[in-house]
């Protein structure tokens, strides 16, 4: 249809490897981080010392790809494949990069890789996806089925079968395959939303809605168990790449690995508040409140307005018992985001703890007027309003207490909460 993607794809390959020569593709590194520049200098020195070493070219290609120098990576992988034709990973990595520009161009490269290792299921899935993208649906179906036989736990193979069934109008088969994919990769939003659509097409709109609603909380991360490709991304040395890898580990609950990545990133560039903040979150999740607090403080010192850091620090201070610090930080968070109901709740809690009833009631009223939609925050507000109401009853202030119960009841009814019935009864008692 168009020659543009193909031409552009290998432009770099052609220009950096003129006939007979072995020039090293050199990325533009002006503005790149020192660790990255150093790494490339070292790899280029290896290549100059041994220009006929296919693996050295491949390693260089991997470093280039890891830092998103795609064209240069394609050239390096191409050279690696020429020099080491029996190595699976070079045509496979080349195919996956080529696939980003042109699925049609990637097909012979995937086939070359699979000729060397026919049993590597992730490559077979990628071949199937490239076939699907080029409209070769029957061939794609065969490759997905083959991949599923090789690795029955490969969620992407089952998802591919489901997608093709859905496009073919077989919604029942689509539901079957996509349900299997979702079982195998519950964190994958793509599978969930396609399954939701398949249910709707199959006539079960209600089930589709349930799955679609649940999928809203899933991120965009599309994890693949593909060690060969994963090994590329592990090579990225710029600070943001450490954060990206850490986030991927966090999604899978691998907090120790996430912490390792973040500490390595901080070593590269300790002035990045997002690394410290991410470390604070990871340490909190892995049960190190003191470490978390220290990391959050560093993030806040570097960038007080970094999104989420002030509320996080306020909560961390509260959990460690520093009520004054928590109150000050929560007020600061509210200065940055006047509608943050969770911070209003924290201010109310601390104020209540200190016996400042006026402030407590005032902040709770503000939180009530914000009508929080987040279920956890809303539930917290309902509980706090109820507790304050009970305290007022205990202090002989039934009218004021009724006001608190009314607000709690209003929110509970709005949310369809089962607590509404109990609140209604309690309000009636208090009024009596």
């Amino acid at each position, binding site marked *: 249809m168009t020659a543009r*993607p193909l031409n552009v794809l290998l432009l770099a390959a052609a220009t950096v490897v003129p006939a007979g020569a072995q020039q090293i593709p050199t990325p*533009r590194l002006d503005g790149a981080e020192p660790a990255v*520049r150093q790494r490339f200098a070292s790899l280029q020195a290896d290549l100059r010392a041994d220009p006929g070493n296919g693996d050295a070219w491949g390693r260089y290609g991997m470093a280039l790809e890891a830092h998103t*120098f795609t064209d240069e990576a394609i050239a390096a992988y191409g050279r690696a*494949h020429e020099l080491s034709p029996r190595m699976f990973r070079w045509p496979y990595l*080349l195919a996956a990069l080529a696939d980003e520009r042109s699925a049609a161009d990637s097909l012979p490269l995937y086939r070359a890789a699979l000729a060397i290792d026919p049993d590597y299921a992730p490559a077979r899935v990628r071949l199937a996806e490239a076939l699907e993208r080029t409209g070769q649906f029957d061939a794609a179906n065969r490759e997905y089925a083959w991949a599923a036989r090789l690795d029955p736990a490969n969620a992407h193979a089952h*998802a591919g079968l489901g997608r093709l069934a859905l496009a073919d109008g077989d919604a029942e088969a689509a539901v079957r395959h996509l349900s299997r994919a979702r079982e195998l990769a519950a964190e994958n939003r793509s599978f969930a939303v396609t399954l939701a659509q398949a249910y709707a097409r199959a006539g079960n709109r209600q089930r589709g809605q349930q799955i679609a609603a649940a999928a809203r909380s899933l991120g965009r991360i599309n994890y693949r168990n593909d060690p060969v490709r994963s090994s590329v991304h592990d090579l990225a*040395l710029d600070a943001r790449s450490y954060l990206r890898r850490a986030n991927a580990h966090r999604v899978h609950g691998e907090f120790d690995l996430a912490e390792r990545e973040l500490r390595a990133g901080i070593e590269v560039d300790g002035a990045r508040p997002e690394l410290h903040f991410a470390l604070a979150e990871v340490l909190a999740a892995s049960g190190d409140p003191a470490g978390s607090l220290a990391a959050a403080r560093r993030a806040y010192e570097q*960038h007080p307005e970094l999104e989420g850091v002030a509320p996080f620090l306020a909560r961390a201070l509260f959990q460690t018992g520093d009520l004054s610090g928590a109150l000050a930080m929560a007020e600061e968070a509210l200065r940055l985001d006047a509608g943050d109901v969770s911070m209003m709740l924290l201010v109310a809690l601390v104020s209540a703890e200190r016996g400042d009833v006026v402030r407590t009631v005032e902040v709770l009223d503000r939180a009530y007027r914000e009508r929080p939609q987040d279920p956890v925050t809303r539930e917290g507000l309902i509980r706090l309003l109820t507790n304050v109401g009970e305290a007022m009853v205990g202090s002989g202030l039934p009218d004021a207490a009724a006001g608190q119960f009314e607000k709690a009841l209003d929110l509970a009814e709005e949310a369809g909460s089962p607590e509404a019935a109990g609140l209604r009864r309690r309000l009636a008692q208090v009024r009596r």
Partner: protein
Amino acid sequence: MARNRAARVAGLVLAIASACSAPPDSGVAPAEAPGAGPEATPAVRFVDVTAESGIDQVLPSGTDSTYPMPAVMGGGLAVFDADGDGDLDLYVVAPAAGGNRFYVQQEDGHFTDATTAAGLEGDGMGCAVGDLDNDGDLDLYVTRVGPDRLFLNDGKGVFADRSAAWDAAVPGWSSSAALLDYDRDGYLDLYVARYVAFDPARVCSQHGGRRDFCGPTEFEGLSDILLHNLGGNGFENVSAVAGINAVEDAGLGVVAADFDHDGEVDIYVANDADPNNLWIHQGSGRFLDDGVLQGAAFNRWGNSEAGMGIAAGDADLDLDLDLFVTHLITETNTYYRNLMLPGFEDATIDTELGAASLDLTGFGAAFFDADNDGDLDLAVANGAVKRRPSALATPGGVDAPPAFWSEYAEPNLLLVNDEGRFADASAQPPWTELGLSRALVPADLDRDGDLDLVIANLDGAPRILRNLTIDTGSVSDEPAAANWLQVRAFDPRLGREALGARITVRTPDGPRLLHALPPGSYLSAGPATAHLGLGAAEGVQGFEVVWPDGLTERFAGAAANQVVEIIRGEGQPK
């Protein structure tokens, strides 16, 4: 120039690919031959007439070494008859302070800058055009990174800023806006897509740490805004009541139309990295986002993409509105075929619309019949938002954009519909020229019966591409093969065009669906006069119009090559 350079290395490319072919006993399942693509690219010709049009001002992006994100996203455009003299004028919206320009078209077709006289100075992202106070002229709404502005027209092309009086100063970063009369009270309401809570202090980088523009995932998305028109006197924000504020996504493109033909106008929003929204009107002023179940929120793979612009049109001629959404490099643009289940399917592969866009970042897009042959073609405005993996521009070359953008510049695309498959017809100038294009609007600027294109370019002049179909004939160089009709749906009770009217035209080649709608796209507004290519047909047998208030009327046919005004109340009620 970039394409020529690329062509020189194609041989080496193929050598690498062929060296990697699998041997016959590789254990790989046999491949099917790819489907045969369209055999020939029809000769649709456009010529860039910007230089002789009188438009010479650049659209300033306001970019600098801090890489401010609005500078790379902006570039809006309105093509409309501002002064009521019957020809189309231009309003160009620029992200940099004071960058907006208003050009009035003169009788000889030249444009003159009338920005100050019209009271339209300022900056912004995009715009929407429509008669908001039902006084018979077109008003202008300008979206901005900050409070939006509403300009009411005095009928002669002089505008007054009425943002405060109308409560129209929507805060935050607004992008595209669409007019619709969702409550059928006769006054046009306004849907404003909003993008992200931009923080200029955020520093972003790629390519080993080189600084670059931030992407939308760096920030929180913003909920969109629905403004209810209070009888032509002001707006009321009804987003909460309508349910629109239930999601906070990075909205960019928006189109309002009745996608499921239930008589209620719906809204489709292209979100950048977030799932697209398909707000189905429930009939009582409340909207429900049904994009996921109706197959229009994610692509075939279940992925949310970097949705930028939207084109809406009946591309497969089955009498419903299909959607086309432009995306980032490495994502294809996506064609959502309306199946009327209700719902859509991603038919990008079937229509061969993917490959041409994979290496480009698309923004403005429009379905329009470029060659007047009776089906809808596509034009797409492109330009990267982060440095491209390989620069297409030659620094200092004739195709070079301003130096800052040399690693971002891309060519635009023309895709010609050939029986449901789209062929890339962009191999010749002006489609090979590089730039940072954003808004794109098809409109018959020279009133010769074919649709020209206006394209906004960052740090460049807006480009006018004149369509030569009528001058040269379409595919066969025979003028008779490029007949046309333009249809204006007018409601005399409202004193304005019936925005949103659905018009089914009986032609010798079968029924065709038109809408009295601006053509969608990105940050842009265009004429609501519908255009229909007729090929060799010398007329149409009749029209059936579903007016926005639900009334259906039939009208007699008309001869080709004219602008037909269809007036509500003068047809045969169905």
